[in-house]
């Protein structure tokens, strides 16, 4: 099997680091890629479920641009919709009818949605959701989950990290996932100050197994928060439209007050949406929140095409089936080498961990060996399936995984 090398990627990184802080920053940063030499940093070509790095290496992409690519890169219906709108008008001085059409589509697809507000990135709308909740309740505090991720605004970051100050976290109370007793305790102590509870529909931290909601957890959260006069927000930025087209809350059977979407909404075009119930419509209207590119119409057209295609192709069901095939196949391959692969989260966006080494070093070595053979696996973050992945991709991935296990077994033993 061909083992990839990354000379051109490294040359681009050398250029990047001279003019860009970190060279490649944020979630594309090399920092969590261990071993870093197993990973490419730059690509300028992608199609369907694959991308090619600047060295020409071909990868079956299980990160899907960290979520946005849900129908596959260069999906013809999405690209056509975007190009048509872009050629007519993208940036403009007044709003596009496509924005209205997309809001109508979301209100049709998502049972909770009685209005929709659009922005560009996930954090735009998680921030907006908190502002709306504060406007609606007149309260300050937000309850969130330890290890939960809602973007990189200062209040969302890990306390103490660079660029944040203690006051940023003054009104954020973190509690463990699935812990109703902890929620009760916070409400008992701070109830009159709690504007909102915000969490992803299931717990998908990095570097840890993902955890589904316990039976009845979400409904209990909603009951307790509503009794307290507080708002329930689901951050569905990462999982939205991969588990259920009505929002991941429909997959689990509950209805929050607001849902934040982004990533998969427009198959790679920059867009996010906050949807909510009618009870919050006036408060959402009163909050001033905007950005220079939030009205660009091409992304609205792309989103309409993306969501329509996902619905027609039963996208979430297809990704679930593909994810189950991939993860069960990988578990079998691992077992054949005497390893235990733990799969957590949802099949359409699984998190995998080798249970044979709780330091993650074995896991990192295996993901690195898979990547340098053409299956782009990260070791710290859940993966993503798309409707563009094929059975053939999965078969090839299993062969790569088998080869990679042979390598790490010779290096690490068992």
């Amino acid at each position, binding site marked *: 099997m061909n083992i990839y090398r990354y000379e051109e990627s*490294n040359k681009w*990184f050398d250029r990047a*680091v001279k003019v860009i*802080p*970190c*060279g*490649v*920053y944020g979630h594309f*940063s*090399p*920092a*969590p890629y*261990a*071993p*870093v*030499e197993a990973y490419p*940093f730059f690509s300028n070509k992608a199609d369907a479920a694959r991308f090619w790095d600047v060295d020409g290496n071909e990868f079956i992409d299980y990160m899907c641009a960290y979520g946005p690519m849900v129908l596959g890169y260069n999906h013809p219906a999405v690209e056509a919709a975007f190009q048509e709108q872009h050629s007519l008008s993208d940036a403009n001085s007044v709003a596009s009818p496509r924005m209205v059409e997309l809001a109508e589509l979301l209100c049709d697809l998502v049972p909770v949605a009685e209005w929709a507000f659009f922005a560009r990135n996930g954090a735009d709308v998680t921030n907006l959701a908190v502002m709306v909740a504060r406007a609606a309740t007149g309260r300050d505090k937000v309850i969130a989950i330890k290890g939960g991720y809602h973007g990189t605004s200062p209040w969302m970051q*890990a*306390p*103490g*990290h*660079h660029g944040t100050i*203690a006051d940023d*976290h003054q009104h954020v109370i973190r509690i463990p996932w699935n812990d109703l007793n902890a929620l009760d305790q916070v409400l008992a102590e701070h109830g009159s100050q709690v504007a909102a509870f915000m969490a992803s529909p299931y717990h998908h931290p990095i*570097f840890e197994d993902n955890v589904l909601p316990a039976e009845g957890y979400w409904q209990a959260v909603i009951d307790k928060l509503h009794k307290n006069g507080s708002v329930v927000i689901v951050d569905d930025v990462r999982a939205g439209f991969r588990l259920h087209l009505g929002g991941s809350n429909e997959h689990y059977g509950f209805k929050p007050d607001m849902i934040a979407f982004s990533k998969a909404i427009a198959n790679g075009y920059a867009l996010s949406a906050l949807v909510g119930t009618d009870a919050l419509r006036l408060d959402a209207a009163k909050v001033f929140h905007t950005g220079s590119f939030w009205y660009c119409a091409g992304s609205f057209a792309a989103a309409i095409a993306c969501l329509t295609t996902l619905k027609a192709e039963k996208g979430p069901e297809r990704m679930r089936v593909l994810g189950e095939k991939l993860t069960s196949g990988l578990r079998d391959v691992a077992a054949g080498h005497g390893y235990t692969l733990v799969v957590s989260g949802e099949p359409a966006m699984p998190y995998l961990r080798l249970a044979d080494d*709780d*330091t*993650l*070093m074995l896991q*990192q070595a295996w993901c690195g060996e898979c990547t340098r053979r053409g299956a782009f696996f990260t070791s*710290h973050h859940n993966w993503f399936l798309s409707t563009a992945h094929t059975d053939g991709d999965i078969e090839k991935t299993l062969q790569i995984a088998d080869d990679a296990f042979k390598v790490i077994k010779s290096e690490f033993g068992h």
Partner: protein
Amino acid sequence: MIDQLKARLNLKAVLRNVELLPEIDDLSRELIKDWEISIRLSIWRDTNILLNFHNGRCTFLADTIEKGTVSLFFCSAAHLNNMMENNASPLPLSGFTRLGFLKTEFSKLTSRLEYFLKPPSDVVQDDRFKMINLSLALSTAVFAIPELLQLDPVSRRIAPQLSAGTLQLSVLPEGPYAHVIYDGKGGAKAFTGKAAHPDALLSFRNPEIAQLLVDGTLDSFGAVAKGDIQLRGKIPLIDHTNVILDQIPKYLQ
């Protein structure tokens, strides 16, 4: 609070190196080979350390009830910090007959420590010098972590996010090594040398790379991408530790 933390860092991270120095520096080893003395430094209503010289070795104890042959007392954290900057003298409580030793022999050892930690600009930094300098800098850094977690405001905000686990810092290919064991409750213990079962590894490709980081002239993200700094295992432990280590220059120059 700042004075208190600075004093604890001076005692438990900087002066602690008196234990390590004779192990890695021939001149220091020669200096202490016949010393049979224990020196206690204590700050009123705060912390204390004991440097025990015996059989050509030094052992370090912190927060001990053991009395020293010589006992030096500081009225406050600021008093100790002033002494570290040569602007004050300690109050001897016992061992008056050995005060001469402190001013002559022991001063030679602390001067030697200062020589490596704050090298004169004209010193010739050969490989041996660099290795000793790096060993002491690494030791100072890891032993600062438990103190910072207790008293530094930023590190205290990091503390609840640190899961239990052991982080090993390695300068490849032959050391020095140090490791920190986090207890998962916001506390930590530091050690020089390799860890038995590290959960995370932060490794420098060679001493030159490590030295650049110590000097504050290395782009650490670029170094990670180039493999000059290698991260393995539970990377959040490394991530959080880096933030803690970044606080050291606020207290130690």
